[in-house]
């Protein structure tokens, strides 16, 4: 009643409503404009620097124009490979346990709450954990393995949560049918549930790995150097570089020419990340359309 009277009594109600809509729309366009401006600035700054030489030569302390990203790129590729190797089995295993095995009791709630909280822990804290645990206590040193294990802990909550969501999307009737045909629990999961949940899991894994690829803070915290001249050849002993660390090193330089090199490295990093993100979005979109239970 009161609302009716008010809107009749307020000649500007419609105008105010429209102005509010315009305000909200402007907010959205501002966000998009920020993204576009950001990418445009970075790409126009660094595009000229991207060449085969840039990718294949090592960085230089003195000559920004001769500097390249070979060791950093090599290090990043190894890091991501190892991180995927460690994080995917553990993450998917945890998700399967929580969705398919764990009884609905306190223990399950504890693990679930714990994972939600781990997802909110700043990545630098994982770096400190890596420093204390992998680098010092397990004596792995500042090596690729220590770096990859640290990154694994950073992205594990992301992989677990997205894999759980993918498993939950598989309808219960599939499991019941499989059990009814005499399949055991694991046979049901391996032959029926996992194939159906695979695209959703893949999306989550790709997004998590792209997060690991851009992460620099945990690597800095475990003591990784930001300036490395060689691609690591031994994953237990050699020092390693990574693309985000190289970008940090160049950005921190006072010489503006190094900023151009940083922009070049960012162009390459972002190109890889955007492709990974696009792949994940396409995967999710296609499978959400195709599979209709």
């Amino acid at each position, binding site marked *: 009643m009161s609302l009716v009277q008010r809107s009749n009594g307020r000649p500007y109600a419609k105008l105010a409503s429209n102005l509010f809509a315009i305000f909200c729309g402007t907010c959205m366009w501002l966000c998009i404009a920020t993204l576009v401006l950001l990418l445009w600035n970075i790409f126009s700054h660094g595009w000229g620097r991207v060449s085969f030489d840039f990718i294949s030569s090592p960085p230089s302390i003195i000559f920004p124009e001769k500097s390249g990203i070979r060791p950093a790129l090599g290090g990043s590729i190894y890091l991501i490979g190892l991180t995927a190797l460690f994080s995917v089995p553990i993450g998917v295993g945890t998700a399967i346990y929580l969705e398919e095995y764990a009884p609905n009791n306190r223990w399950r709630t504890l693990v679930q709450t714990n994972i939600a909280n781990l997802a909110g822990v*700043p990545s630098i804290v994982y770096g400190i954990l890596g420093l204390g645990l992998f680098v010092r206590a397990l004596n792995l040193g500042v090596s690729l393995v220590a770096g990859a294990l640290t990154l694994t802990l950073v992205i594990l909550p992301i992989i677990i949560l997205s894999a759980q969501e993918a498993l939950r999307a598989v309808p219960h009737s599939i499991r019941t049918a499989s059990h009814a045909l005499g399949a055991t629990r694991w046979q049901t999961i391996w032959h029926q549930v996992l194939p159906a949940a695979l695209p959703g899991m893949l999306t989550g894994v790709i997004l998590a790995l792209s997060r690991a690829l851009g992460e620099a803070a945990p690597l800095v915290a475990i003591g990784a150097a930001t300036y490395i001249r060689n691609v690591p050849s031994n994953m237990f002993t050699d020092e390693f570089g990574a693309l985000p660390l190289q970008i940090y090193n160049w950005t921190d330089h006072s010489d503006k020419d190094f900023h151009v090199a940083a922009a070049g490295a960012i162009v390459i990093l972002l190109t890889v990340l955007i492709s990974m993100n696009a792949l994940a*979005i396409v995967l999710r979109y296609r499978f959400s359309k195709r599979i209709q239970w």
Partner: protein
Amino acid sequence: MATTTTSSAVAKPMLAHKRPLWFEGVIHVLLIGCAAVSIVTTIGIVLILLSQSIPFFSEVSLVEFLTGTRWTPSFEPQHFGILPLFCGTALVAGGSALLAIPLGLGTAIYLSEYASPLVRDVVKPMLELLAGIPSVVFGFVAVVFVSPLVRQAFPSAHLSNALNACVVVSIMILPMIISLSEEVLRAVPRSLREAAYALGATKLDVTVRVILPAALSGIVAAFILAITRAIGETMAVSLAAGGTPRLSLNPLQSVQTMTAYIVEVSQGDIAAGTLEYRTIFAVGLALFVCTLVLNVFAQGILGRMREKYE
């Protein structure tokens, strides 16, 4: 057609059934092991942080650490008061929230109440893209693009300053604010909207007087989660805000946050076991406690909100 698919579905598990039954048990144990990793991670974080913090606090009193106003661990006379670092973190997180919250909430309202499904389908992946840009890239943006602009507007500003960091961190937390708030706004039952429209309310009335109050607790939780993210933000802040621990709320000066301090110390060659080495763990512990408390609080609010509308 139907028979062939059924028979193949039966055949597969039947063939695989030759495996002994203990195999099921082994799988079960392995999966429990996977789940235990995340529990061990939490215990590991706490143990590692405490193992170095306890010796630190035996030399520096907890009271001095929490109330001291000077932070000079690397030169004589050494002072270990975390307040300047805390102040830097609060300034950057608070400033970026101030910039990001109105913009983010406006966008979330537009996406949930006004935008057509097509616009939503295009804009949301773009926001995910923004969320996927790494921290160090925002550090670069702060140094190369934002800093000159800030210094043009405020000639007295330091080369690295808190405002730089606020601007880039606000862009970083925008996607999070938008997606979480939008989710909460869309969870408000349609019946509430319809009822308000039926009473003759305009879209503004519905949004501001019906939907926002109904979604308020969830939106607050979204803001807290975004602020937590800003507190933990490291590379962008350490590049943008500078490295001078300072107890001041002037955004044009160079400040140091807790995270940036950890980065600074990690980059130097500091021998394990020294008091300075242990500061990393003490500051890390402070950071961990701050973010954990805020996170648990926000998760609690979101959990109650979900129960209410599901």
